[in-house]
């Protein structure tokens, strides 16, 4: 069993953001969460990763049968969790290569030299059609939306997580970049069949590349409907049809 979210409740500024949110994602599965803006999807992804600015009121998160609630974000990452951010941050003064080498060193316990590292990154950057110069620039600084998202995928290729959360990976991507990102993710999944993926998205475009096992519709901090790819297509065509979601579904 990979990730088990058990009755998560989270309140921010007296507003309930997660409402008894429960979901289990098994090893090798791909799940999709779709939901309107402001429904708590990014908050959920940050809570899974251990962002200290969010506190759970109640609930538990199990990863491979162990609670990870008391673990720091870096400990969660080193257990194999990875969050691709909706808005990856820019960090002035810290070069991408220094960042990635440090992350790799923390994972493997030994630091690789800059030269060997750049050589090692060559293929991955080529796959993503990223300019090698980006390694030497400050993290995400001056990167376009698409370049930032590719940089997230580059980190996946480098750190080889076993559980990936993709928060709006398709936002800010043009058709060509979407194809590159989609193809790279598809290949990663093929090479690592045990990887579990949680895709958070507004649009099912990315699902042309990664086939989901389950599609969930999230409204007001909880899953109100679960289905397959048909649900995603339905949401794309008809929106979330919030009227269909009864108050009962939202507040038990």
């Amino acid at each position, binding site marked *: 069993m990979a990730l088990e979210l058990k009755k998560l409740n989270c309140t921010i500024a007296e507003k309930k953001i997660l409402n008894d949110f429960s979901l289990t994602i098994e090893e090798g599965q791909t799940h999709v969460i779709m939901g309107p803006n402001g429904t708590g999807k990014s908050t959920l992804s*940050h809570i899974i*990763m*251990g*962002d*200290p*600015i969010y506190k759970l009121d109640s609930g538990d998160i199990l990863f491979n049968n162990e609670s990870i609630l008391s673990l*720091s*974000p*870096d400990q*969660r*990452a*080193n257990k194999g969790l*990875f*969050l691709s*951010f909706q808005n*990856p*941050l820019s*960090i*002035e*003064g*810290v*070069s991408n290569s*220094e*960042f990635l080498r*440090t*992350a790799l060193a*923390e*994972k493997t316990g030994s630091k690789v030299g800059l030269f060997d590292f750049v050589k090692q990154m060559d293929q991955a950057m080529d796959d993503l059609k990223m300019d090698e110069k980006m390694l030497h620039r*400050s993290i995400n600084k001056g990167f376009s939306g698409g370049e930032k998202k590719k940089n997230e995928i580059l*980190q996946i290729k480098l*750190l080889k997580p076993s559980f990936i959360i993709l928060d709006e990976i398709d936002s800010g991507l043009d058709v060509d970049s979407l194809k590159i990102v989609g193809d790279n993710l598809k290949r990663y999944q093929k090479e690592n069949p045990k990887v579990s993926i949680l895709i958070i998205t507004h649009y099912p475009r990315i699902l042309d590349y990664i086939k989901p096992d389950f599609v969930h519709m999230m409204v007001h901090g909880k899953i109100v409907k679960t289905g397959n790819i048909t649900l995603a297509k339905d949401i794309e065509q008809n929106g979330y049809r919030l009227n269909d979601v009864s108050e009962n579904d939202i507040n038990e």
Partner: protein
Amino acid sequence: MNKIKVENNKIITDLDQSLFYDEYKLKIIKNTNVMIDLSETKKDITLEIETKENTVSSIIILSHLTNNYFNYKIKAYSKLNIVHLAVDNTDIINVDLKGKEANVNYHYSHLNFKKNQVTFNVNHLEDDTESYLVNHGVTLTNDKLIFEVNVYVADNSKNCICNQDNKIIMLKSNTSSILPNLLINNQEVEANHSAYLGSFNKNILFYLESRGISKNKCYELLLKGFLLGEVKIDKQLQDWFFHYLNIKKV
């Protein structure tokens, strides 16, 4: 590289023909690079550094636990790039842009453990003079650091550019402050300034940590990035500067 080193009261110089040194006065005659190492003296130093016209030079300064006064005079069509690494210093830095198109690029990085004040005075005394100041300090204790930055543009100095970026990252709470004063007497000037006083952004820390980097390592990355940024200096100098971060880690 040319070198001036002060060891207690003794001054050791190793200089070529591009500069001339006498009695705490350094004169740059041709394009050059020089390192001024005050890291091993306990003596407070007053140093005057003057350029000739039409020179481009780089200076690296290391200082530690002293109260120093640096007085730069930059002549026409000359440029000075200065990287100044200071550990627990109270410094006064005076830069006179004395000739047309005189240009200073001053990157001042400071590690602060006890109470200090650093005062910059940059005087645009001629047309088309340019100053670019980066003052980045980190306070590692409850003692405060004050950056006072006074930029003066004379009334007859046209088309000057003055840029300043003053930031203090406080790793412990204290009453540090940044006091920028712009005294601009000429309308045709391009002036930019930014100031920040506080700790590292929580979202940035979380982003780094989420990649498996421990909190301590995150701070190390961020501190090094903050203090040096794009500045390229020898590993040996970086090690000298950054080892103070480890010594006082509580």
